[in-house]
């Protein structure tokens, strides 16, 4: 057993657990995006950042990849953490503004500005699809290509892959390709409707034919305004 301190409380973790797993076990919420139970942790979205250590040596790490260590001091919600998280959301918005997941995250964390030029790539390169395909669908049909700003998801040589069985696993898990609700600000980079509308955009759902509402899936607005 590993003993650590989380938000001031002593917690115990099993050997091999990450900080995220430990936090979950104790019911502490840490937002995640590129993490999925059943897939290898990757650490791409940097949303699950937490602050570890104390004093001048304190630093931020991604809790989904950082192992639980004896004596570690963890804070999940410091100002430093929230600030960095907000910037991550703003950066993700700038490349995938039509993702419901990311719009919802923006509302949830009070990200009310998007200061970058929109480059709609409908992908935040979280790697969930790649891991889903390889680890759960036994496919290895898709992968990352290039590095840096040229990085993208594709099949080998950008050709239709023989390996792909069209199982749809990659689409199912993708956080960027689920359409955002077609509320009053459907075209702007940042919706924030749940935050700013009163009454909430729920009241408009029927007229605006929110797809999420029809499918009975959304509920963000309800949750936010409750």
């Amino acid at each position, binding site marked *: 057993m590993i003993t650590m301190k989380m938000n001031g409380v002593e917690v115990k973790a099993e050997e091999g657990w990450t900080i995220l797993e430990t936090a979950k076990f104790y019911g502490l919420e840490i937002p995640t995006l590129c993490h999925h139970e059943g897939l290898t942790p990757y650490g791409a979205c*940097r949303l699950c950042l937490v602050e570890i250590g104390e004093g001048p040596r304190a*630093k*931020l790490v*991604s809790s989904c990849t950082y192992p639980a260590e004896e004596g570690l001091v963890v804070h999940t919600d410091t100002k430093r953490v929230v600030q960095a998280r907000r910037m991550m959301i703003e950066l993700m918005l700038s490349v995938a503004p039509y993702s419901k997941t990311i719009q919802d995250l923006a509302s949830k964390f009070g990200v009310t500005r998007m*200061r970058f*030029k929109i480059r709609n790539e409908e992908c935040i*390169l979280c790697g969930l699809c790649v891991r889903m395909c390889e680890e759960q669908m036994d496919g290895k049909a898709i992968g990352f290509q290039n*590095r*840096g700003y040229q990085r993208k998801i594709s099949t080998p040589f950008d050709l239709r892959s023989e390996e792909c069985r069209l199982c749809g696993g990659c689409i199912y898990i993708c956080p960027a390709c689920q359409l955002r609700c077609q509320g009053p600000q459907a075209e702007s980079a940042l919706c924030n409707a749940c935050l700013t509308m009163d009454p909430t955009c729920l009241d408009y759902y029927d007229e605006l034919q929110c797809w999420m509402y029809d499918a009975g899936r959304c509920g963000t607005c309800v949750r936010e305004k409750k």
Partner: protein
Amino acid sequence: MKRVKKFKNVEELRKTIDEQEASRQQEKKRVIVVSSGTCGQARGSLKVIEALKKAIREEGLKDQVMIRVTGCHGFCEAEPNIIIYPDRIFYQKLTPPDVRTIVKETLVEGRVVEKFLHRDPLTKERAWYENEIPFYQKQKRIVLGDNVFVDPTSLMEYLSIGGFRPFLKALTRMKPGEIIDTVKQSGLRGRGGAGFPTGIKWEATHRAPGDIKYIICNGDEGDPGAYMDRSVLEGNPFRVIEGMMIGALAIGAREGYIYVRDEYPLAVRHVTLALEQLYKAGLLGEKILGTDFSFDLHITKGAGAFVCGEETALIASIEGRVGEPRQRPPFPAQKGLWKKPTCINNVETWANIPLIILNGADWFSSIGTSGSKGTKIFSLVGKINNTGLVEVPMGITLREIIYDIGGGIPEGKAFKAVQTGGPSGGCLPASMLDQIIDYESLTAAGSIMGSGGMIVMDEKTCMVDVAMYFLNFLRDESCGKCISCREGTQRMWEIVKDITEGKGQPGDLELLEELALATKEASMCGLGQTAANPVLSTLRYFRDEFEAHIYDKRCPAGVCKSLIRYAVIPEKCTGCEACKRACPTGAIQGTRKDVHLILYDKCIKCGACLEACRFEAIEAQREEAIAIVREVKP
């Protein structure tokens, strides 16, 4: 190359070292050392060697003179150069015909040929001997110095300077714990960038549970402008390998890898040759010198990605996976190559080990400052008179490096900034010239020691442009995993690019700072964590320059093309037509002896005319200054 025989035991090796050392001391021949590293070869050293051989043959001096082709001596500016021993006469910038003259004059007649001697760019004085050259005088070349004495392709030559004595000492007289203690006490810190204490890393790997352990030499060296590790591997590969063998003894590793980037063909060749000879000599492989110590060493060629220098990415790359960093911990010392404890050190770190073992921890720790011991090699490049590799004791000031060793800024221009630490480092202004060089002081100043790149910039350098250059490098070289690093560098680059194009807006600098902080804080590996340094340090020391670009739409250094326009100053123009000939687009009009004129619609702002004009009659003007002038005088 002298033949290599197999050493069956410790005694045989010791005897051969004694013999080789003695025969070097008794050498009666004059020795001509030709520097022929990558840089020397690029400047024609191979032709010089040919000419030298021919001239010596023709003069019938074959029995009295020996040629030694060595790796790099570090004085790039003076390549190709030769040193004639025993006098140590130093001739520089030679061509094949020059060599002929030298052989006749110096070797036959015994006269020094003045015009090939080094001339100090500041005092204009000529130096006869190598040790009189200011470039070398303030250096302390404990690692690089031996490059002059050995043919890097010959094990016997390495033995003749006492090579492998440190290894013998470690093998026969020291326990692993003692070796580690010596390295710890020496205060040696990693030369790959972060400066982690080497002894502590060795100890951690030594103590990590498991029988199988690995050691790795990191020769990826991806920083733009840095080539220290290349020169060490090229010029003295045996020294690095000996360091690794001592490390293997201490750590308990029986296998190791040298990771060299494929763009370093000469380094790859010399390391490969060295490995071949060491296997033949029985110094690598099973039961080395009949003892229980077995050690296999391989070379791995990297494809030259900057991020592959990061230790976990490098390990992934050796394993044949994509070179992408992963979460640490677990550190390589716990779980490294093939998930086994692994000690990874930089080329220069390994090269220091034999010296520390031979001369002791006290000798090493007597050099340097309280927190940083020994020497550091820098590659001094950019706007500096003496470009080259300089090895200096820790604690020396930037001013000493730039002015005393580097000979100052060319063409009498003013110093503006020096960039240390490559893309992870920062730019330090003139007010920091008296800053001493050690790990802590450089970090406090907003830069880092890094692996040793040192780029000097003069007054004609635009710091916003410099920030953009490094961001462009980083957005390309980031592995792209973390959104903070991938998008962070991309967006910072976009903002800075806009600023250089005159599209900067109020609030840009604040956003830049916010983004820089987030990139630094949120990224997984050292690349992202330091990616903001070039921006943050230029903002810290040259904020006014950013502001001039944003608010006045002016590039003070006259570099950013969108913000300048080239114009002829009528009073100064003599009508010499030089600019007209230099212009690639035919944008300059004018006849001989008449004032010339630049046609703005044709000008592509290449700056060739400015370079060509000997009368300083062309200047880079501010875009809208011209606009105003035009308004006044339609």
